């Protein structure tokens, strides 16, 4: 059987085999499009009540809600735009046991994100991305200096983290993988990487609070046709006790702290998020005592110059 015959046979087989698309997808999509919010142009105004909560994802809410905070002019820092992060409710069909909760927390204005020229990245990073094609390339580096050299740009860091105790962490792309030990993990998307995620170290600080830092960097390779004016981030599956605090560091860095009093091993988790030099930083602090976790997280945030 030649390739053409093989292709025809597989296409036929794909059409007669049980459909991998879940039942009811069409109905759910129809419900989504029937309740799309009013189209927004120019000024972005919220129509949150018009959205069907069960199907609203944070990405669009971030794009539609009225900014609550927009400041930072003259500080040299990019500002975040915070939103009234009302919760969405359920995704999926509860009767089919598909219930999943998702919370909407905040969004970041897309125009605060810098799309760095791919040419500004190191040759080493670009080669790694090329080798991996359009899929995720995962590269581990051993030291902060190596990580910066691999990126080809300087990264901000907190003086508190610099003086802390670094340990490695395990990384798994999904639940189906065994975690691999890492120290500085780069995720590169695309042959000319359109986005780069750096998972840096976590620290078992003296207080026992653990910190993980993620830096998200976009490049000008990101498809212009799907760039939105509003960028977004989400924290999903938070429980009822999530909190939000807008926190201004002594140096004028505007951050938002999202708390998730999760039930994972009795750990409270707080995420401090900010945009600095056009990159999105997320610091997750975890520990058993909420007050202590927030205190440590703020100390770390204060350490960014």
């Amino acid at each position, binding site marked *: 059987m030649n390739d053409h015959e093989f292709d025809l046979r597989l296409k036929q087989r794909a059409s007669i085999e049980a459909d991998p698309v879940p039942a009811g997808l069409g109905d759910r999509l129809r419900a989504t499009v029937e309740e799309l919010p009013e189209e927004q142009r120019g000024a972005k105004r919220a129509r949150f009540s018009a959205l069907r909560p069960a199907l609203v994802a944070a990405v669009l809410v971030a794009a539609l809600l009225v900014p609550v905070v927009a400041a930072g002019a003259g500080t040299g820092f990019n500002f975040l735009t915070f939103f009234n992060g009302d919760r969405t409710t359920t995704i999926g069909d509860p009767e089919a046991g598909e219930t999943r909760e998702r919370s909407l927390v905040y969004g970041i204005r897309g125009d605060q994100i810098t799309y760095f020229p791919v040419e500004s990245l190191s040759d080493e990073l670009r080669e790694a991305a090329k080798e991996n094609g359009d899929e995720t390339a995962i590269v581990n580096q051993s030291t902060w200096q190596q990580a910066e050299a691999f990126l080809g740009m300087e990264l901000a860091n907190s003086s508190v983290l610099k003086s802390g105790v670094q340990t490695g962490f395990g990384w798994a792309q*999904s639940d189906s993988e065994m975690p691999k030990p890492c120290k500085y993990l780069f995720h590169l998307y695309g042959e000319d990487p359109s986005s780069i995620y750096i998972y840096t170290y976590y620290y078992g600080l003296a207080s026992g609070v653990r910190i993980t830092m993620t830096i998200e960097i976009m490049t000008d390779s990101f498809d212009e046709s799907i760039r939105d004016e509003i960028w977004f981030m989400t924290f999903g599956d938070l429980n009822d006790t999530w909190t939000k605090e807008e926190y201004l560091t002594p140096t004028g860095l505007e951050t938002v702290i999202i708390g998730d009093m999760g039930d994972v091993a009795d750990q409270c988790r707080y995420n401090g998020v900010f945009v600095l030099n056009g990159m999105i930083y997320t610091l997750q602090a975890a520990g058993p005592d909420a007050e202590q976790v927030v205190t440590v997280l703020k100390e770390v945030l204060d350490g960014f110059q």
Partner: protein
Amino acid sequence: MELLGTAPEDARREEFADAVLRCGRAMFLCARSVLDSDADAEDAVSEAVLLAWSGYGKLREPGAVKTWLLKITLNCARQARRRAGKIIYTDDLSPYDRGMEDRSPDTPLWQAVCSLPPEQRTAVTLFYYEDMSLKEIARVLRLPEGTVKSRLNRARTRLRELLKEDGQ
């Protein structure tokens, strides 16, 4: 060429809804080729629909709407995959015993596709399940057609083994 942005909103909404319903299956399969579960893939599709609607006014080529929707879906799925990544504290490391989502025994082709390397999966899904051309797939993946072709070639070899359809 008519600018979509000039159409009355009701007509645009209807047009957009039609496009989503027409492409919904492809969007799901595209997301599912990246993500491990149907639920995650459907979430990514929902995100993509809403994100696409927010940017629909910018779409200048109505004929390219499917490619455009699939690009957005692929991006949402990749974001979701990144968010799903797990950071495990070294001292907490223990073997994971969770596998991929159970799959129906009556979808051997789909199972075989899902077992392909990630960089081949989306191209294969769009080629065999959506009957898209190399050119269309290349646009979605933002890759040269030759790259898509070579990925399909590698995938074809693997699928022949997996499905025992070597034609001999």
